[in-house]
């Protein structure tokens, strides 16, 4: 696993892609993290209101997806490519981006899961190219 060096250009590009594709579609917060739990990009309008602890969220999400991946291996799968949790007021979706990155999306019931899955799948290749080449 190589170290990540993020340039301002890559971050700006990734940020605007996430905003245009997810935040404008009604997603509250989108976080791009790596599988070691580092935050690469943090977008969304509810950061100030909700004060999401991005560092803890990133560490737990990376751990949760890593654990899920081990579960997949136990049942003979390579990996599960996405993870979704439904809450009373908010939902969270985790999708793999490339080999080492994870895109976390937090959204309410006003946004459909299908749309999120579709947009995350679209974004995933472009984001992977930006960061992983």
């Amino acid at each position, binding site marked *: *696993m*190589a*170290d*990540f*060096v*993020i*340039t*301002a250009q890559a*971050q*700006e590009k990734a940020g605007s892609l996430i905003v245009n594709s997810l935040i404008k579609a009604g997603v509250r917060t989108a976080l791009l993290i*790596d*599988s*070691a*739990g*580092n935050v*690469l990009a943090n977008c969304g309008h509810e950061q100030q209101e909700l004060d999401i*602890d991005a*560092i*803890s969220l990133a*560490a*737990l999400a*990376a*751990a949760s997806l*890593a*654990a899920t991946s*081990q579960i997949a291996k136990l049942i003979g799968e390579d990996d599960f490519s996405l993870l979704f949790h439904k809450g009373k007021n908010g939902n969270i979706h985790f999708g793999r981006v490339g080999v080492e990155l994870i895109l976390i999306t937090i959204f309410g019931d006003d946004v459909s899961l299908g749309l999120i899955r579709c947009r995350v799948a679209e974004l995933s290749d472009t984001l992977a190219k930006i960061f992983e080449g």
Partner: protein
Amino acid sequence: MALIDLSKKEVHCKVVYYGPGRCGKTTNLLYIHKAMDEKDRGKMLTIDTKGDRTLFFDLLPLNLGKISGFDIRIQLYTVPGQVMYEATRSLVLKGCDGLVYVADPLKVRQERNIEGLEDLRRNLEKNNLDLNKMPIVLQYNKRDLCDTPVPTLTVEELQKDLNSQLNTVYYEAIATTGIGVFETLTEITKKTVRYVAEKHLLTTID
């Protein structure tokens, strides 16, 4: 795996406290959390079971000031020490940049200390990391037990068991009262930042 953010001028490193069960890894983090100013540390995250044993990991993010204009941010992690949680330990080690191996001084734990170090070597290999090339500091914890009738290991015995191959810095500590805790943290931080900087930053800054 260090993360170097050139736009925010931040360097993020991951340091993992490793060691056999009940050796005091979480106690180290709790002491650091208690002793550090709130503006320099984030929230401490723990996932433990009812009996206070770490189930997955503890996480404590710290801000350690600037080097060459870059903000240094360190994330301290612990692993669950019990033998059965090997898979979890391997997951937490993913992308780590520095290690602290905490050893238990009880004579009855001598084997566990040695096995723990072997387990660390094995789990690093699973993540394509080499123990001999990583920054590592040893901490001989619970030195206060040496003054009690409980049979304990001497520093010489611990050195022979754990440090004969690694040949790294060690600190004697009593994590519950903070003795040796910050010495260990300072040393591993220095080593880790130097390790990451030598790999990337020195060339990036130039």
